[in-house]
């Protein structure tokens, strides 16, 4: 898979929720080679501070006009610099990188999306991908945020025939509690999903993994770790194979989130 380095022109950069920004970039080579769930490494400015590139998932791919969107949360120096950029500015971007989402196995109809915080980002592209497929999947989104103000574009999922379950840590919107609590409750009360996709902070993903193991579920998880290169050479982004191993299995060794991931398949391989 070729990797491109492009000077991408920013077409828009706007705040879409509390602390969350959306950026659209013109990067024809990257946009036309990318798949949902993949990511790109952004150099936020030409100087060497911050030193490293920052990884962001594609939220939507607009192959036809050579653009893509990202949704990002302002958490530190790099994302603060990005939020101050305007349409017409340029960013140096490396991508597309990693393995994106795969389609669910043939038998799957009931699909659950589990998104924690800014982990919602890749689900827009995933939904586009699944809605293009001939099978009419029944999709339920579980979307958790710290507070209602941080929720991003829930209406997109509603308009695309998803059942949307909102959870907030402070109870300002939807279910009062963690998304994993909501998922566990729903899973015992009603039917279990045929397949799931999840993306969110590490503690959430740990609980999702436990839930998936307990209920013997199959799915795909998009993981985040610190990255230096994003292309597989520094071996810095590793995650333990054991994280994904089944109940009894103990596996040694590591996988690179930037190459073997960021999206990993859970349960039986399909």
């Amino acid at each position: 898979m070729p990797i491109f380095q492009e000077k991408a022109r920013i077409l828009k950069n706007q705040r879409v929720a509390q602390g969350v920004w959306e950026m659209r970039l013109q990067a024809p080579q990257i946009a036309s080679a990318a798949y949902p769930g993949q990511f790109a490494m952004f150099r936020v400015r030409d100087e060497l501070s911050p030193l490293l590139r920052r990884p962001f998932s594609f939220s939507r791919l607009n192959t036809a006009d050579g653009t893509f969107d990202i949704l990002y949360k302002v958490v530190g120096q790099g994302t603060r610099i990005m939020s101050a950029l305007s349409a017409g500015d340029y960013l140096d971007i490396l991508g597309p990188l990693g393995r994106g989402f795969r389609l669910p196995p043939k038998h799957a109809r009931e699909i659950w999306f589990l998104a924690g915080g800014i982990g919602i980002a890749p689900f827009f592209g995933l939904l586009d991908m699944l809605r293009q497929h001939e099978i009419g999947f029944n999709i339920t989104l579980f979307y958790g945020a710290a507070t209602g103000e941080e929720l991003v574009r829930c209406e997109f999922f509603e308009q695309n025939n998803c059942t949307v379950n909102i959870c907030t840590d402070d109870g300002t919107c939807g279910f009062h509690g963690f998304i994993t609590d909501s998922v566990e409750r729903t899973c015992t009360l009603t039917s279990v999903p045929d397949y799931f996709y999840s993306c969110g902070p590490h503690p959430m993903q740990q609980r999702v993994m436990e839930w998936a193991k307990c209920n013997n579920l199959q799915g795909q998880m998009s993981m985040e770790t610190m990255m230096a290169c994003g292309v597989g050479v520094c071996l810095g982004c590793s995650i333990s194979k054991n994280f994904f191993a089944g109940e009894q299995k103990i596996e040694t060794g590591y996988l690179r989130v930037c190459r073997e991931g960021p999206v990993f398949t859970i349960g039986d391989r399909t």
Partner: protein
Amino acid sequence: MTAKKAEVNLKVTLGPLSLPNPVMVASGTFGYGLEYSSLINISKLGGIVVKGLSIEPRPGNPPPRLVETHGGLINAIGLENVGVDNFVNQKLPLLLKHEVPVIVNIFGNTVEEYSELAKILDGVTGISALEINISCPNVKSGGIVFGTDPKQIQKVVSSVRENTGLPLITKLTPNVTDIGEMAKAAVEAGTDIISAINTVSAMAVDINSRKPKLGNIVGGLSGPAIKPIALKKVWNILNSVEVPVIGIGGISNHEDALEFLLVGARAVQIGTANFIHPKTSVEIIEGIRSFLESNGLKDVNEFIGSLKLDS
């Protein structure tokens, strides 16, 4: 313009090792050579130093393995690698399709492991040189890092020397009081070339979680932050031994590279900068060429070691 470019000589000779230009990529920052090949023409490089190899594959350290600091990167990868057999059988043949000197970086935890690696690689065609990473603990000497003790350095380097006729580079750690002593030990044991520096030992902690930021607790600092340290270490080595020296540490552009050449390094390696801008090394080669041209120099060797010391 192109005719003029051809006039500048960038070839350098480091004892038994000749390179098309003085700019290589450093071990651990360029994988096994091909990962960046869709972004840059790797045949333009002065050389590729591959990720450090041990006899058996290694899983590496528990994550997190990276921390970013001001102008630097602390890593604790733990020398994860595919093992020498996988490298020779699977990675090397693909790399050799490109015309670029391949330098194999090796490490072990016993003197025997180093000599075994030298024996294995000595018979492999296509390798331009071996680089011995001595920044690892000797398990038979209570975990003392080989590169911090002149006696251990002698043992490792001579055991490799006895088992290969390949040009030999010894890569020194900066985490010593007197790097000149270490360089002397390596030269006495038969190294042809010295490269320096490896990463500077470092640590980072989180005041909120009260935990170390690295799974391994401590790691090694690289990147622009270490450049002045590296330059001084290279200077120390040049003042202690006669063999050619390769400068490494924080080089991010052609000016940084020229600084190392100016103090006397015969070549340089680019590490962390590859992550930030994969084209760094090829741009440095062009930058050196233009610098020499605009300073009326026809040969990079005229610039190497031309530091003016008296006022």
